[in-house]
């Protein structure tokens, strides 16, 4: 590593540490874990230095690394297993192509990482709406809460996920 790389890195660290810490705290729900991952994010950059042409480009890149780091290895395994075992019970004609499978797996991880820090009920309500397409009234019946509550849960989950999506693009949400 050249001295100028190290200067660049110091500057990056100084200007991005703050929001990155927030970004990760939202994902992980824990400040200490977030601080650890901020560190790891910069370590990644230290191992593979690169130049950026804009501030939001820097943010977007750091957010992408941080997101990758915050996706739990073991949770990943667990998810993959569940999905693959579901696949084996399908008739061969319905098996997805390897490309499709990879794409779905990626989406699954992304969605999982976005939802992990939401309260269980909120997560359940959101998945029942988004994956199963159930109407609010049925979700309310399944969870034993009012329809108004279901709407509140859904808005909360959407906001949370949209925030993370925006941050992935390097946007600062204020």
């Amino acid at each position, binding site marked *: 590593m050249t001295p100028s790389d190290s200067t660049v890195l110091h500057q990056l*660290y100084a200007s991005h540490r703050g929001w990155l810490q927030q970004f990760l705290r939202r994902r992980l729900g824990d400040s200490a874990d977030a601080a650890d991952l901020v560190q790891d994010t910069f370590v990644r950059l230290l*191992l593979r230095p690169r130049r950026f042409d804009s501030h939001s480009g820097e943010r977007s890149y750091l957010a992408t690394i941080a997101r990758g780091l915050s996706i739990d290895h073991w949770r990943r395994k667990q998810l993959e297993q569940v999905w693959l075992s579901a696949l084996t019970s399908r008739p061969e004609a319905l098996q997805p192509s390897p490309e499709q499978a990879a794409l779905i797996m990626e989406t699954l991880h992304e969605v999982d990482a976005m*939802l*992990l820090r939401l309260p269980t009920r909120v997560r359940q309500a959101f998945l029942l709406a988004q994956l199963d397409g159930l109407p609010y*009234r049925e979700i309310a019946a399944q969870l034993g809460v009012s329809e108004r509550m279901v709407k509140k849960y859904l*808005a909360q989950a959407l906001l949370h996920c949209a925030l993370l999506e925006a941050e992935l693009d390097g946007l600062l949400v204020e």
Partner: protein
Amino acid sequence: MITPRPNTLSHASLQQAADWYVLLHDERPDSQVHQQWQQWLEQHGEHRDAWHYVERVSQRFGQLQQQDDSQVLRRALVQPGRSGLTRRQGLKSLLVLGAGSLVAWSAWRSTPLPRLIAVWTADFATGTGEVRETRLADGTRLWLNAGSAVDADFDSAVRLLHLHAGEVLIDTARDTRPFFIDNRHGRLQALGTRFSVRQSDGQTGLTVFDGTVEIRTAGSRQTLRIPAGQQITFNAAGLGAVQAATGARESWTRHVLAAEGMPLGQLLDELGAFRRGHLGCNPAVAGLPVMGYFPLDDSEQSLRLLQAALPIRVQRLTDWWVSVEPGV
């Protein structure tokens, strides 16, 4: 047409976008809703940006919805999330890939970046479980405990060491130039001597076995001379109490930890620098005093010895996630 993306987005706009989305997807939407939403959307460029992100969330799920296994997927996704433990396991494996033979995990884990870079490029550094003896240009003998990093900065006027992480034992050679050790908590001047310096997060421990060492704290600028047979902890803000030197601060150079009433928590901490993975201690037993000699290179044996001698139980979740809990 490509419009430049804004760099910020207000939380309030995202919140509104989420609320609109929920209203629009009601199976019995209010007849006015669609029109009102259109108005909101046209009101402000930021509203359209916010809507874009809410839509994107929905699209992600759309990709999964096309699978006819939504039930299975949902069950997988609803399963309770990771614990801190499993996340750290994931990180651990990542680190093994990423950082290879650098200083010990525990030592640099909580290190601010500037110091991390210093450790990376240090003249002398040891990894997990590694104790190293070396001789400096002036003949001074230097031992590095596991997970330590030191820079040597010698010129015609002074001999200066920078301790970035971990612990060193120093046996200074005779020389007309003064011998200093700097770290973030202060500066030590060796006055013909054998001593150890151990740096942890909040403080530095100095133990003098031979001769005298003078401390000058980095912030409060207090000075104190510590004679042979004494030890003290200090940080930038001040000095702790002077106590009798403990053999443990020298015995590690022989790959043995000599505990003379050392709290269990501290002992495990030191042992941890000699093994891969996590070695934790339940706070309920962290204060138990420990007497005895523990082989650093065989931490498994050390754990067996501890378990035999104390009311504790060594709990293994995996080979590299071990914690010491109160015994039953």
